[in-house]
């Protein structure tokens, strides 16, 4: 799980061009959107692409993303349970 969390943090940094950030700068349990990392709806859509591309998880409904992208830990949990690759 810790490995997946680190992998995910690196992928988030790369996908969302968080150039000046290191994985340790992202709090595993902090909210990704709004007050935490300060990501927005376009980032959420990029994360949907990331989930499909890297883990084979298809999210048709963008609003479902809101629950899954609560924090890196929640995301990792969801990926672990639903991944197809």
């Amino acid at each position: 799980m810790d490995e997946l969390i680190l992998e995910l943090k690196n992928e988030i940094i790369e996908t969302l061009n968080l150039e000046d950030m290191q994985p340790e700068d992202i709090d595993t349990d902090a909210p990704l959107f709004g007050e935490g990392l300060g990501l927005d709806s376009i980032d959420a859509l990029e994360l949907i692409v990331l989930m499909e591309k890297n883990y084979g998880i298809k999210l048709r409904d963008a609003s479902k993303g809101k629950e899954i992208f609560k924090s890196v830990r929640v995301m990792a949990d969801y990926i672990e349970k639903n991944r197809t690759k």
Partner: protein
Amino acid sequence: MTRNSFYIKSTAQISIQQPLCEDWMENPIWYDSNYVRSLEPDYKQYIPPMEARRMTRIMKRSLTTSNVAIKKSGLVLPDAIITGTGWGCMDNTEQFLEILCNEGEQLLKPTLFIQSTHNTISSHIAINTCNNGYNITYSHRCVSFDMALFDAYLQYKFGKIDSALVGSHDEVTPTSFVLLKKMGLVGCDDEICGEASVSTVLSSTPSDAHSAVAAIRIIYKPSVSEIHSTVNQLLADAEMCTEDISAVMVGISGNKTTDNLYYDIVDNCFRDKTILHYKHVFGECFSASAFGFYAADCCLKHGYIPDFLYVDKSQGMIGTPKTILLINHSDGKTFSFILLRSV
């Protein structure tokens, strides 16, 4: 009050010359290659990193030149934001196309799409500067800048606006360069290709302004006699005569086919005028005519014309230029005439 003069409060450029300054007038950078990318300033000074992270080069450049021009002008909220771009956000467009063509229609990235449209630039500036005013983007090949300035000038002249941020921006990615070259638009003969980001703030108030737009005329597919009458109308608009023009600045670039069209107009209408050029300094691209405007404004503002802008120095040099006429054309179809005067 007649509203013929739209005063140029500020300009800012990022190009293949030194960014955000007028150093090129004294120390221009010359290139051997005919493909050069723009020299970027340190954007961290201008755009917070969290905001910059999604922006492509053209977005950073256009936002930075806009913000610098706004700041220099002292006008926080211009009445209008009017933008020209020939090819728009090509970097994102190309990346999206590459995924589409190589990987198929399954995993396309939303950011690439959102930031691929031509109006990305103009709306992005409005979002960043919280400007709810008139906002429009013209995308018409080599007269995109001219079209944007024309709209601003006309709205000012007829009292719809008192100020405007006008800009023109194009990026030439390595792939774009290959395509533009195949189209014969850049990189022919001695031509150098360059990227463009020029922003200017214009206002109804002359304070602190050194120059003004005095008239603009644009015409599609004119005959020789229509070019004559357009020039006469332009001068009448500005209440001037041919003798009042200090110099004519044309968009010759080293591409013989398109250059000859400028020489034809000069031979027909401005035989004894001093001819200036700028594309050998700033390069050619769809937004290059904005550099003509920028360079002419710099000359009027500083009261001299650098040697290297003369096409033929033996024609005689000008002391302090008062009025510069800009002539630009797009594929020999649309011809634009912009008259700038010092104030």
